[in-house]
C-alpha cells in the first residue's frame, strides 16, 4: 500500500506492506539513522519524531503514519542546536544510539525531568553524563 506523509519536511510516498513497521520502511528509504536494535521498543535506537513526538519505529506500523509528519536525524541541518550540543559535549562513543537521543532531546520541553525524558533511550557505551551535559547546554 502507498502511504503519503511529510518525511523530513518534504511530501513523500512510502510503498509499504500492511504489516510493516516504520523502522523497516524508513531504512529502505535510505534513512540509516533509524536503527533496529531491541525490536521491542525499549532501547530508543529507532526513535523518530511523529508530529514532533518521539516514537519507536519498531513498534509503529508504517501504515499509521499516513498524513502525518515524520522527522529523522537526516532531516536536521548541521546548525541544529541539539546536534551541535551533542557534538560539543562529546556525548557519544560508538554513536549507534545517538540519533535516537538527539530526537528525544529535540522533543523535550522546558521544565521536563531530563532523566525521565531520556528513560526510553539506552546507551550501552554509558555516555549519560555527557548526554546530560548536552541537554543542559540546549536548555541554556
Amino acid at each position, binding site marked *: 500500500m502507498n502511504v503519503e506523509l511529510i518525511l523530513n519536511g518534504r511530501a513523500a510516498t512510502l510503498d509499504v506492506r500492511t504489516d510493516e513497521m516504520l523502522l523497516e520502511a524508513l531504512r529502505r528509504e535510505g534513512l*540509516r*539513522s533509524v*536503527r533496529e*536494535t*531491541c*525490536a*521491542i521498543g*525499549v*532501547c530508543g*535506537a529507532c526513535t523518530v519524531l511523529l508530529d514532533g513526538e518521539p516514537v519507536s519505529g519498531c513498534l509503529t506500523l508504517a501504515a499509521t503514519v499516513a498524513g502525518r509528519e515524520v522527522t*529523522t*536525524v*537526516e532531516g*536536521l541541518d*548541521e546548525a541544529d542546536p541539539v*546536534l*551541535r550540543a*551533542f*557534538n560539543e559535549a*562529546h556525548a*557519544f*562513543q*560508538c*554513536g*549507534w*544510539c*545517538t*540519533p535516537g537521543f*538527539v530526537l528525544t532531546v529535540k522533543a523535550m520541553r522546558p521544565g521536563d525531568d*531530563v*532523566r*525521565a525524558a*531520556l*528513560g526510553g*533511550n*539506552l*546507551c*550501552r*557505551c*554509558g*555516555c*549519560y*553524563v*555527557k*548526554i*546530560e551535559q548536552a541537554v543542559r547546554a540546549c536548555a541554556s
Partner: protein
Amino acid sequence: MDPRVTADLRYSCEVERPGMLHAAFVRSPHPHARVVAVDTSAVPGDAVVMVPADVAHLGRYGCQVKDQRVLADVARHVGDVVAAVAAPTREAARSAARLVDVAYEQLPAVLDPLDAVARGAPLIHPQAAASARDAVSIDVRPIAGTNVCHRFRIRHGDVARGFADADVVVEEVFRTAAAAHAPMEPHAAVAEWRDGRLVLWSGTQTPFNTRADLAGLFGLPEQDIRVIAPPMGGSFGAKTFVRLEALVACLARRAGRPVKAVLDRGEEFVTLNRHPAVVRVRIGARSGGTLVAKEVDCWADTGAYADCGPGVATKMGYAGVGPYRIPHVRVDSLAVYTNLPPGGAFRGYGATQSVWASERTMDLLAGELGISPLELRRRNVLRDGDTFATGEVMRDVHFEECLQAAADAVGYEADPRGKGLCVLLKGMQTPSRAEIAVERTPVGYVVRSASCEMGQDVRQSIRLMAAQMLGCEPGQVEVPDPDTDRSPFDTRTTSSRSTYMMGRALAEAVRDMGDGERGHGEVRNEGGLDPDTGQGVASTHWHQGAAAAHVSLDLETGRTTVEHLHASVYAGRVVNRPGAELQNEGSMLMGLGTALFEGIEFADGQVTNANLSDYNVPAAGDVPRLTHDLVERDGADVHGLGETALPPVPPAIGNALASLGAHVTELPITPERVLEAL
C-alpha cells in the same frame, strides 16, 4: 561535525555486496543433544541450505582450543547452530530456517562449573585437544578426561607455612552471574569468495586472529583471506575471534554469491557472554594487618566452547591475588566446559569476577582484624620495587594514590558507614605485537593500523598522536578501516592496549619516515606466564585503579541506592581527554549494572531473559553521582583506560553494603539477596 552525531558513520551491519544473500540459522533448543537427522525437503528452491555433514570435512576452529565445528553435529548449548540457510531476503531466510526439521537425541547436560568438574560429570568435549595453531599464543593446559579445558596455577612461596604464621584467617566463596555485552549493534558479517580468495567484512576486534583461524579451517594460506573491519556499534569483547565469519564464508561458497548475516537481539544472548564464575578466597594476616598468605580458586564457566576462556581464567587467577605484597600465594584457576552458551572476552576480562571475591574478602579480613579496610589495604598495596606473586618486580605503580583518591572522594575516613572501597590491578595483553604504517599525501598523512573502532575512538587517539608527532592538524591525518590486505599486523584490539602499543609504534614509524614518503613502526611486548607456576611476566604494563561507593539501603525492600560512585584510574598521560573520560564513565556504569542488576538467567540451559526489557542495562535514571580522576605523571607512559574502572565498582558497592550489615556474596546484588543477607 562528528559523523556519529549526524548518523553518517556506516557500521559493519550496513555493508552490502551486489547479489548478496541473507543468512539465518537453525539453533538447538536443547543444551546437549546429538543431531540425528536434518530434513531440509521443505526449504524453498531459491534458498541455499547447509547441514552438519556439509561442513564436517573442515574440522574444527577456535582461538585457544580447536573445539568448534562450523555447524554442530552435537549441539552443546541451547542456541548452538546446527544448520544454516541463505536466501534473497532476511525474512525469506528466516522463514526457510523455520522449515528445517532437525531430529535430536538428547544427552545429559551439565549447567554449573562445580557440577562439571565433579566425578562422573558428562564430558562435553571427549576429544578436546590443545590448539596446534594457537592464535592467541597462550599455553593451554587441559586436564585429560575432564571438562577442564585449561588450568592456570600460581605457586609463590609456601602457603602452608604462610597460614601457619597467620593470626587471622578468613575464607569465603563468591559467585558472579553470566552477563550480556549487549552492544547496540548486533554481530554482523558479510563473506564473498573471489577467485578462491575469501573476503570478509566483519564487525570484529580481531581481524588478524580471525584470518589465522579461518585459514586453518579452510586450509588456505593466510594471504588468501582478507578481513575488513568497519566500525562497530559497540562490542565490549563480544565481537572477538571467529563468530559468524565461518558460517557466512561456508554459505557464500555453497551459494556462489556473497552472504550476509546480522543477528537478532535474542541470538546475541546465546552467542558469547561473560563467564559466570565461582571464586573461593582464603586469606591470612598477622594481627597487625600484614598479609602473609592467600589462596584463590576460580571456576570460570566457559560454556560449550573454550573460545578465549583459558586466557580469561589466567587473568582471573592473577587479578584475584590483588595489588598486594603477599609472601605466600597459591592460585588454581580453571576454565570449565558446561552446556551454557560460550563465555568469552568481556570488558574486564576475568578481573571482574575475581576482584569481586578478592576485594570483598579484604573487608571481611579487616573486620576480623579490627582495622579499617582503607588502612589494611594501605599497609599491603604494592609499591615500586615490590614483587608480585608472579615474580615480577613492580614499576610505575600508583595503587596507593588511586586508593586514597577514591577514599577521599567519598569522605571515607571521616565516616566509613555506607561506604566501600576497592583497588585493583589488571594486566595488558602480553606478549603482543603492534605495527603501524604512515604515508605522506599531498594534503597530509594516511596512517594504517588494524586497531578497530568500536566507540573507544581509537582513530581519534591515533590522529591526535600523529598530529603531535608530525606537526600537523588532526584533521590532516586519515585513518582508514582495518583491512588485513592493507593494514600492517596487530595482535588485536583488546585489553586496552591500542593507544599504548600503537602510540609507541607510531613514534617508530614517524622516525622511520623522516623526510621520506612512508614509514613503518613495530613494537613488541615480550613475556607471558608459565601456566603451571604462574611465574614470568603477566603484563609489561599494569592497569591500575580504585573505586569508592557511597550507598544507602532500604531495609524494608532490600533496595540499594548508590549515592555516589568514584573511580581513580592511572592514566600516565591522557591522549584524548573526552575519550578518556567517556571510557571511565562507561566502565563505571557497566560496573554498576554488573553490581546491581545485570545477570543472564537460565532455566535448564535456556536463557529466560534474552531481550533488553528483561535483561536490564543501565539507563539515564540509574546513573548515580558519578565522579572520577585520571591520574597523570609528566613523561609517563600512556596507560590504556578502556576497562580499568569496571571491575572495582561491584566490590566497592558490595563493601559499602557490608558496612551496613548486608554481606552479599553473589552478583548481581538484587534486593532479594540483600534481604537474605541482612
